[in-house]
């Protein structure tokens, strides 16, 4: 009976608890890329509004539709990059990509996100688009906080930052666009870089 064996027991217990309840093969690199897509998309939307809509975004017309399309493309690209890089990392870690832990993570991430997405679509259809930037940040932040219980715990802090930015955006809708750029663009790049160096290396 040596203390070394007891230490190993404790670390085995912790390891098994984490492995069986959390999906941790998230890729930091996909966060960086999602941030870059968001910045490019925001630049395109900004350019469209400045050039063709004299700086004011109105709810109807092709400029608005193009902005929505840009947003949809960013979301699609970010999600597919995330899935691709995470699958690659899971393979490298010897983890299964679709098991109880990843299923639980996806479900808990999607619940606030889908509710938020539907809510934004509903208020957009009512013509209240001033809040949509802030609402996107808030619901995305809540999704991250919720998902952090089933993944790398650190992503909750990114969630709190997004929620904070979103609340500022709700209070000052005029800054909505720039807060969105900070939240989805810059914060993703900073956070992704941090995650990349903390978890991806090794």
């Amino acid at each position, binding site marked *: 009976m040596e*203390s070394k064996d*007891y*230490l190993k*027991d*404790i670390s*085995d*217990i*912790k390891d*098994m*608890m984490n*492995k*069986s*309840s959390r999906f941790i093969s998230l890729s930091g690199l996909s966060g960086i890329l999602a941030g870059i897509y968001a910045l490019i998309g925001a630049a395109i939307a900004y350019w469209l509004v400045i050039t063709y809509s004299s700086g004011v975004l109105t709810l109807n017309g092709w400029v608005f539709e193009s902005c929505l399309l840009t947003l949809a493309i960013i979301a699609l690209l970010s999600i597919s990059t995330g899935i691709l890089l995470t699958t690659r990392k899971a393979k490298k870690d010897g983890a*299964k990509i679709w*098991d*109880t832990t990843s299923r639980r993570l996806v479900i808990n991430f999607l619940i606030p996100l889908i509710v938020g997405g539907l809510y934004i679509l509903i208020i957009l259809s009512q013509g209240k688009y001033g809040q949509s930037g802030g609402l996107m940040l808030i619901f995305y932040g809540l999704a991250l906080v919720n998902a952090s219980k089933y993944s790398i715990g650190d992503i909750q802090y990114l969630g709190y930052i997004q929620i904070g930015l979103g609340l500022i955006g709700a209070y000052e809708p005029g800054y909505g666009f720039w807060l969105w750029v900070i939240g989805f663009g810059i914060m993703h790049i900073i956070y992704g870089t941090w995650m990349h160096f903390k978890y991806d290396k090794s």
Partner: protein
Amino acid sequence: MSIITNINKAFDHRIRLGIMSILMVNEYADFNMLKELLGATDGNLASHTKALEKEEYIKVEKQFIGRKPNTRYSTTKLGREAFKKHIDALEKLINKQ
């Protein structure tokens, strides 16, 4: 010496320790999930789950999903308490050194 007595012999094996660890943080786990996580063979895992079941530390439910039989395991209240005591004892032993 009293600490040593809290070390539970029922958990004194890698597989059994693993089964309990998984079931402490999951509502339930089925046979295949345990097998994959622990890297154990069918026979080996079955003998360890039986041992824990005999101590009444885990509960076994057999059911059918479609036509496939499915066995799922969960902890009992007794099992949770015993495992917590075991972890406490391990930690105390480590801190003493």
